């Protein structure tokens, strides 16, 4: 039987969420509601210093004055922020020996295919596992310490390296940056912290795995990566959540700081629960990700977005230093009733700054997939260069693909190119392959592969495998 695009659509239609299990782990969870008391309580639970509490309270006060943004091309019922619980932690939080970890949790990690100690030799990836809001276990810490690399949960960092956290937190994403960033700054429970000292090239991929388990909780984690002068780090982030009928909120902040000559490569495979076929449930993914590049520094964002009911995410680069480079590679797949409004911002402030944006959107089912990007060349950013390409692929006549680029140039030496296309897999493309002796199934795979490869190639090897697995049908098939 010939494999046609229709078959593929069928397959796509029935693709079920693989990570939709729940783990029965006892947890320590705050009752729903948000007020200053809750902020105090979270801070107290974490035994935080005064300045951290102050930081949270400032953010909370700013948040109270803000309104939810509505400009994104997504529709969802209003979130009742008082109905959410702002802290949930697995009860048996170990002082972590692997043996002490709740077997349920171990099983969870196994199911997720996360490498911890047993597998570390094999995979060579250091992992920080964030379960609901709390970091559970960080592997490889010792080995990294030898090089002076700090890689730990955010709360540990606040306790052990307050000077670093205090110096950098909120410098890229200020507390009052936007509605969700302010909310996160007020109630963030944990996350990851990473510091690479001067001139050190991190020998392995650092990785965080996020999982929402509890019902009716919001997950608010925070990642702060500081690459000191001349250092290099590759950082991975993965996310899953159980299938639930209610919507869950995930509002994270990621801040990257690349000092002079440093390079940060940040890769995400986002596979939050996207909701079921009828569009019920799923995660609201409202994330603020931003990095700042000092002189000659480079930040590269790579993301594979397959999950979440609603995604609202713009990993950005502030190219502050001269000769700095920002990159953004993205594959966003939406199916069923998913909605994604994602893209990037490249703010060129320094001279000779360069940015590249490659965005591939694939929409199927009843989904809507939007690219929204900003390229801004400031007055002093002479010889700035930007290249943007965003392609959208439509599968089925019920979905939508949209492009909203903002291009602002204030310097006469700026060179900006933007290109976008929207199409489906052309009959002529398939016909061309056919007449070269490639059957339709292979042809679709070929076209789809070619379509996404440009981005998948940018992922670190370990992640590329996972990403490919994740996109198995939805990417290999539909895209092209």
């Amino acid at each position, binding site marked *: 039987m010939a494999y046609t695009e229709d078959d593929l659509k069928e397959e796509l239609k029935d693709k079920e969420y693989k990570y939709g299990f729940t783990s029965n782990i006892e947890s320590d969870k705050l009752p729903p509601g948000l007020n200053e008391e809750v902020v105090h309580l979270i801070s107290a639970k974490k035994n935080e210093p005064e300045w951290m509490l102050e930081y949270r309270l400032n953010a909370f006060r700013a948040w109270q004055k803000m309104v939810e943004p509505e*400009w994104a*091309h997504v529709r969802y019922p209003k979130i009742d922020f008082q109905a959410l619980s702002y802290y949930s932690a697995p009860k048996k939080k170990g002082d972590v020996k692997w043996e002490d970890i709740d077997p349920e949790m171990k099983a969870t990690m196994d199911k997720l295919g996360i490498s911890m100690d047993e597998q570390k030799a094999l995979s060579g990836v250091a992992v920080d596992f964030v379960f609901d809001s709390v970091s559970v276990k960080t592997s490889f810490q010792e080995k990294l310490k030898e090089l002076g690399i700090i890689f730990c949960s955010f709360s540990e960092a606040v306790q052990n390296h307050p000077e670093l956290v205090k110096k950098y937190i909120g410098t890229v994403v200020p507390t009052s940056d936007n509605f969700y960033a302010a909310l996160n700054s007020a109630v963030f429970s944990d996350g990851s912290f990473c510091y690479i000292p001067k001139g050190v090239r991190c020998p392995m991929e650092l990785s965080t795995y996020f999982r929402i388990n509890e019902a009716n909780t919001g997950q608010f984690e925070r990642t702060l990566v500081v690459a000191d002068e001349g250092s290099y780090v590759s950082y991975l982030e993965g996310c899953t959540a159980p299938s639930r009928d209610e919507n869950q909120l995930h509002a994270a902040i990621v801040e990257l700081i690349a000092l002079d000559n440093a390079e940060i490569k940040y890769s995400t495979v986002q596979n939050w629960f996207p909701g079921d076929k009828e569009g019920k449930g799923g995660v609201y993914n409202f994330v603020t990700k931003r990095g700042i590049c000092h002189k000659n520094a480079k930040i590269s964002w790579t993301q594979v977005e397959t999950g979440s009911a609603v995604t609202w995410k713009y990993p950005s680069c502030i190219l502050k230093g001269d000769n700095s480079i920002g990159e953004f590679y993205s594959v966003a797949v939406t199916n069923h009733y998913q909605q994604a409004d994602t893209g990037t911002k490249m703010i060129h402030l320094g001279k000779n700054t360069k940015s590249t944006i490659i965005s591939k959107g694939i929409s199927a089912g009843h989904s809507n997939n939007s690219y929204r990007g900003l390229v801004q*060349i400031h*007055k002093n950013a*002479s010889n700035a260069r930007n290249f943007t390409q965003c392609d*959208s692929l*439509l*599968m*089925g*006549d*019920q*979905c*939508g*693909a*949209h*492009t*909203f*680029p*903002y*291009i*602002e*140039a*204030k*310097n*006469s*030496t*700026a*060179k*900006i*190119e*933007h*290109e*976008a*296309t*929207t*199409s*489906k897999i052309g009959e002529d493309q398939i016909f061309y392959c056919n007449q070269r002796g490639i059957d339709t199934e292979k042809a679709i795979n070929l076209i789809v592969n070619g379509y996404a490869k440009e981005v998948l190639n940018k992922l670190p090897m370990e992640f590329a495998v996972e990403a490919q697995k994740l996109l198995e049908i939805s990417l290999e098939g539909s895209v092209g």
Partner: protein
Amino acid sequence: MTTVELTKKDTFLAALSPLQFNEDSYFEGLRNNAKNELAELDFPTSKTEYWKYTRLGKIVNNTYTLGQPDKIDITNFLIPNLEAHVLVVINGYYSPELSNFTEIDSVTLTSLSAAKKRDFEGLKKHFNQFTQDKKEIFLALNNAFHTDGIYLEVAKSNSVEKPYHIINISTGNNTLSQSRNLFIGNVGSKVKIIESFVNVGGEKNFNNHVSEFFVAENTHLEYNKIQDKKENNFSIATEQVYQEANSNFTINTATFNGALVRNNLNIEVDASNCETNLNGLYLGKNKDHIDNHTVVDHKKPHCNSNEVYRGVLDDESTGVFNGKVFVRQDAQITNAFQQNNNILLSDNATANSKPELEIYADDVKCSHGSTTGQIDEEAIFYLQSRGISKKGALKLMINAFAKDALERISIETLHEYIDAKIEEELS
């Protein structure tokens, strides 16, 4: 007693209130609807996405006097060698003395106010049909307070060779005028229209203009718009276009000057096999601010649209391009192409570009491109190697870049005029 502070809108409306219109109840009703709408609208702020890159302070903070009919010498505004029917609108009022055209059986041509007094079938059917529910304050202002303009209707299956040239003039200082046109191309007709927006001396005149186009089945309509208002004058122009099956609509917009120019071009393609061409050129100098917003709404299958807008921006000028292409779910097999190119000649110039695609149908080919940059160094070098001075080479390249945008103008003499004008403006 409390004093109520008047908002900018209140002041604006107060200035317009002396206007009296002796119209029948139907048209009065339309004006009243718009007035009710105005009660709920306000001037856009920096937060209004639709006006993101254009600050309206210059327009709304000014105090205006209402435009009055006037008589001036129009020789300077005629296009050399162009054989055309000439129609003159001054400060929003049609001027029969200055107009010069021959009556043709197949064309109904009068001022809009005169048309309202006679019972034209086309007028009631199409007037104000596509400008309702847009919730745009300037559109509502025009709907409620427009004075006069041109009514042009081409009868079925008639092809009119000689183009119509409308000269829309502002005179005086701080003059507020609101002109309004309605163009109807009936089934199988063909017509070409030129409209120039100019001024005679005077500062801070504001013309809030609206043109409506009804392009029926198998009709070809070409509209060429020349904006050349000097000395710190403001214009906001809205074109509302409705296309029926197999029709062809082309608009060429050339903006040579303007302290603040905003063009809102909305094209509704509500039938199959239509072709739509939108081309624009904007040349910014000094503190010019030129903003082009276009919307092409593809509602039915098998349509093509082409859009090319080009800008050359010098000194402290700002160019804005915001193009939107909608492809609705039914509009399969749509080809939509959109392009915006900008050249910045000065470090104080700004180019803002926002080409948008919103697509809900899968069997489409839609693409857009946007570039901002300089003239290709290698091309300059090539010309230099052929013995052309660097300055000459640059001029040649910029001229070519600019002229390219308006290639689709089909009226030869107009084309020549615009090319010459481009060279003059860029020198």
